[in-house]
């Protein structure tokens, strides 16, 4: 918006002074006194004016016709009615009529009138004076109203400007309250709808308290609005409404049952301004929070990656250095020791891997890249990755013609390896471990069963928790992250994981995977 200061342009030639601005000039200069002077002074001035006209008449002593003198009296009345208001104008009308009659109409110094024409003159003077008084008063009141409207519009405009600068919702309220105080002379309190669904005090002007009655009324007004029944909206209670509905109430203080404040349309406009500013500030707040959150997540991810790198890089060097020794035809004690070191370093590497997976899950930083995959391929890869030093017999049973699954291959291989690892650890070495996969409704169910001791019912949920280990597992190495990680990975695929009894002893760990539904997005590039 481009605001042009009217004073900054070239001065206008006087001939272009329009009728309207001339009128403004007149009314302004005439009405200036009205609010400034006490009533007594105004009456006195009105009477003095009439006295001055009368004095002039006596001095001229009938050099002019009495009718012309009546014109001068009329001028005095017009002047008084513009300058000092209705009361003084009516007073001057009366005095003028009386003075005119008494002094300038024969017989002089008497209220009696001999010439019938002068009765008309005096009466007309009286009537016209009173009429002018009323008319002038109406004009003055209109001008005053226009000025007030103009002031309110200006106030509303500057409210908009200053609210635009306020960033947070509480700043918006403070700014609005200060503004209303400065421009309308009222204190305001704001009650806003809290997340609990109740109206809570959001801003209370310093030194002014919202009493219980006002608060109750505010809540009532809000409740009526919330139920979409237009309640008797009283002046001092203005609903703050946005496109999403009512968000609070603005209360003018001090609270009086009889409202005598700014015009209602102005108040409503102010309330609408405040409401939309709060809405905007809340959006800004939320955007800021999201940004902060994103920064935090980014930091966490960077941290995870750098930890991953700094821990795993030296370990990779250790293992790469150990591998040639463990592979070579070294002397038996050295070979043995190298293999122990190698196995332990592998374990440490797996442990760091597990801790990282867990922190990724907890930081919601897990990226799941789902693609169609073959279950057989999945099981084959898990069997290849599995550390199965004793060569435990693993039996696999895959339903023929099983459809593809939509999974992040590496995550699910990890799940399967974890479950197989547990099954091998916690079941007798001479009994086999089973994997089977079959279609179960709109999902694929994979099951890893062992012939171990099974999981007691009471522990079945617990073992999927972090660092939880089943009873009687203290002899077996592990830190209890395999199952929670598996649970996290499976749930990241909208699958379920659980454990149940195996008929004939042992446990079955089951999980479900989503099917790949082909061709629904055949043209999508990945």
């Amino acid at each position: 918006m481009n605001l042009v200061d009217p004073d900054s342009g070239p001065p206008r030639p006087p001939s272009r002074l329009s009728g309207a601005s001339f009128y403004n000039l007149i009314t302004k200069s005439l009405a200036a006194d009205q609010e400034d002077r006490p009533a007594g002074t105004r009456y006195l001035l009105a009477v003095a004016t009439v006295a001055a006209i009368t004095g002039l008449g006596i001095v001229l002593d009938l050099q002019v016709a009495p009718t012309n003198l009546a014109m001068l009296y009329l001028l005095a009345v017009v002047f008084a009615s513009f300058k000092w208001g209705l009361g003084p104008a009516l007073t001057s009308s009366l005095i003028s009529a009386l003075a005119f009659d008494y002094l300038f109409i024969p017989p002089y110094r008497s209220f009696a009138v001999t010439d019938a024409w002068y009765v008309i003159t005096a009466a007309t003077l009286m009537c016209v004076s009173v009429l002018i008084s009323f008319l002038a008063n109406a004009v003055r009141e209109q001008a005053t109203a226009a000025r007030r409207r103009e002031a309110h519009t200006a106030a509303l405009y500057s409210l908009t400007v200053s609210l635009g600068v306020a960033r947070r919702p509480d700043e918006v309220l403070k700014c609005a309250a200060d503004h209303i105080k400065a421009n309308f002379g009222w204190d305001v309190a704001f009650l806003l709808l809290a997340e609990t669904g109740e109206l809570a005090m959001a801003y209370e002007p310093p030194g002014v308290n919202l009493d219980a009655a006002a608060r109750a009324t505010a809540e009532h007004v809000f409740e009526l609005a919330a139920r979409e029944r237009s309640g008797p909206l009283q002046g001092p209670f203005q609903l703050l409404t946005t496109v999403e509905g009512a968000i609070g109430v603005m209360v003018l203080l001090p609270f009086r049952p009889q409202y005598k404040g700014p015009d209602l349309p102005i108040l409503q406009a102010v309330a609408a301004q405040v409401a939309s500013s709060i809405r905007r500030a809340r959006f800004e707040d939320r955007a800021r929070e999201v940004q902060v959150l994103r920064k935090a997540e980014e930091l966490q991810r960077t941290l995870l990656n750098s930890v991953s790198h700094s821990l795993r890089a030296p370990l990779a060097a250790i293992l790469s250095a150990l591998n040639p020794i463990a592979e070579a035809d070294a002397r038996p004690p050295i070979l043995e020791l190298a293999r122990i070191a190698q196995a332990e370093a592998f374990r440490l590497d797996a442990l760091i891997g597990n801790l990282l997976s867990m922190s990724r899950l907890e930081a919601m930083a897990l990226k799941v890249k789902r693609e169609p995959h073959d279950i057989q391929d999945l099981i084959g890869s898990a069997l290849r990755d599995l550390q199965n030093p004793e060569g435990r017999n693993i039996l696999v049973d895959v339903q023929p013609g099983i459809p593809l699954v939509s999974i992040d291959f590496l995550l699910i291989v990890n799940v399967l390896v974890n479950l197989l690892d547990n099954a091998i650890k916690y079941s007798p070495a001479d009994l086999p471990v089973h994997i089977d996969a079959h279609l179960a409704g709109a999902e694929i169910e994979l099951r890893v069963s062992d012939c171990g001791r099974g999981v007691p019912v009471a522990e079945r949920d617990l073992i999927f928790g972090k660092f939880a280990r089943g009873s009687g597992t203290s002899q077996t190495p592990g830190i209890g992250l395999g199952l929670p990680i598996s649970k996290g990975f499976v749930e990241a695929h909208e699958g379920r994981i659980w454990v149940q009894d195996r008929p004939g002893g042992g446990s079955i760990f089951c999980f479900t995977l989503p099917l790949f539904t082909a061709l629904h997005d055949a043209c999508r590039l990945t």
Partner: protein
Amino acid sequence: MTSNGSTILVVDDEIGIRRVLKVCLASAGFVVYESASGHEALSVISELQPDLVLLDLGLPDMDGSKVVTRVRQSNQCPILILSIRDQESDKVTALDAGADDYLIKPFGNRELLARIRALLRRGRSETLTTNFKCGAFTIDEAHHAAQIAGKPVRLTRTEYTLLKSLVHRQGNVATHRQLVREVWSGMYNENALHVLHVTISNLRRKTERDPLRPQFIVTEPGVGYRIATGSQRLP
């Protein structure tokens, strides 16, 4: 096996890995250069023209796949990617950018040397032949026929083309995207991937004794497939 003094550039910011690699490769008869950063590697490659580059994906100054792209603008020397687990998508990007194979850290000495020799061999043998051998497979391009361990197998046209693509790589990994492009010459998307997996599954059913424990066509999780040449870790 001799290495004829072939030159290898090791690019890794971890001094530990560089030292291990230097010991292993030097004792196998290779001449080893080292770089700790991508920019350094690029200038060494253009100056010294190594026979092979071992490239770590976690370089501090440059994305691994960017290094590969820059090298490929002027040089066709084999590039073997070194990476840790969890970097599958980076690996795939680097392979699709023109790297020849990858190895997961920590690696075994034998596997490392086998990969390097396979890459160097492939670079040399550009003889005009229509018979290709890789692992247990032989394919006869003149007759569009394939053999496994000397016995002929009946393959569909697609299965044959897929096998040919794998055999041509001489035991190096082929990414999903590369296979889809070479066999179906189509767009790489979920449905293409679906067809690829189904074809691999069929191929395995015809060639493997136990398709669940494949001995010949090995899955590289999250990356692609390769033909086993006897040097890989097998179940």
